[in-house]
């Protein structure tokens, strides 16, 4: 089960250079400076941690930490 710390650790591992601690759980990634390639990198890290493959169709909805938590808890 992923928690917020796991997702922020994955962001760091993904080389995301924005201030990760400033991103609220429901803050949209794009509004906090993450671009599409940051999200691709983050999803690779999360796939690695969880072993769960994320289909392309699900990616547009994974736009904040809360959405990722809900997705991986489902």
């Amino acid at each position, binding site marked *: 089960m992923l928690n917020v710390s796991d997702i922020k650790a994955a962001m760091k591992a993904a080389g995301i250079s924005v201030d990760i601690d400033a991103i609220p759980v429901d803050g949209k990634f794009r509004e906090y400076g993450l*671009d599409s*390639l940051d999200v*691709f990198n983050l999803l*690779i890290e999360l796939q690695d941690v969880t072993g769960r493959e994320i289909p*392309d169709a699900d990616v547009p909805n994974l736009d904040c930490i809360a959405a990722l938590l809900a997705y991986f808890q489902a």
Partner: protein
Amino acid sequence: MTIGIKAIASYIPSTYIDNLEQGTAFSENESFIRGKIGALKLPIKNPDEDTSDLAAAAVQALIEKEPSFNPNSLDVLIVVTQNGDGRGLPHTSAIVQQKMGLPKTLAAFDVSLGCSGYVYGLYVLKGFLQATGLRNGLLVTADPYSKIVERSDRVTSLLFGDAATATWVGHDAPWRLGEVSFGTDGEGAEHLCADGGKLNMNGRQVFNFAALKVAPHIQHVLSKAGLAAEQVDAYCIHQGSAAIVDAVARRFGNMSSRFILDMEQTGNTVSSSIPLLLEAHAIRSDWKRIIVSGFGVGFSWATALLEREEKC
């Protein structure tokens, strides 16, 4: 006899697209274009230039740059392209032979590969020279994606530039072709293909492929060669985008700074990206070992170790 790389030259069209301006048109900021795409300029061939013209210009550049290269003594010419003249029939290498007045005794053929094509081409040429006893080979890369990129397509329009390179391969070369490994996964074919003559790319799948496949493949070649990552002076991998180079390099920890990123003035030039790096950074360096790794269309990938031949 050591078969390897003797010299490299290139041709980059002088006409270009300003990628910052193009990024603005696609609502992308400068930070994204510089930091993630990595290209400020995308060279574009003139409409009246064809693939063989780019290839011939690269061969001419080699003639002018390397006095010891004699085109009349060439035995083999390979052109790596998937966007040859016309519809690819006849093969572009035959057209280059004619345009450059190369010997009619030449063995000339095309290799149909994208971004892995340079590494494949080196070893195809090495094998051909070994099998035939011929001595002088020329590996040309010329794959102008401007022929197939739709300028309104944000995914591909910001990435690709046109260029051509010519690599002289033969005996007694300063750079020996060492351990190598190849790979193919046709399940990725649909993610980077030309549909109806227009390039179509699933950016996420191509990125995932590169980010996940290339680093372990480089480690595999290092292992085959009995080398640790720090025993390699530089890593010249395909310049797919700055983000791709960074994603691969990051997996090498404190060796990541040895991954060369140099695509600001060219963009992703497909099979030309690795020889452009070698020409600019490696050939006249004091490096002793270089890893080259190409990956892309297919999916197809190839990684090799280049080693400087020590003179006795």
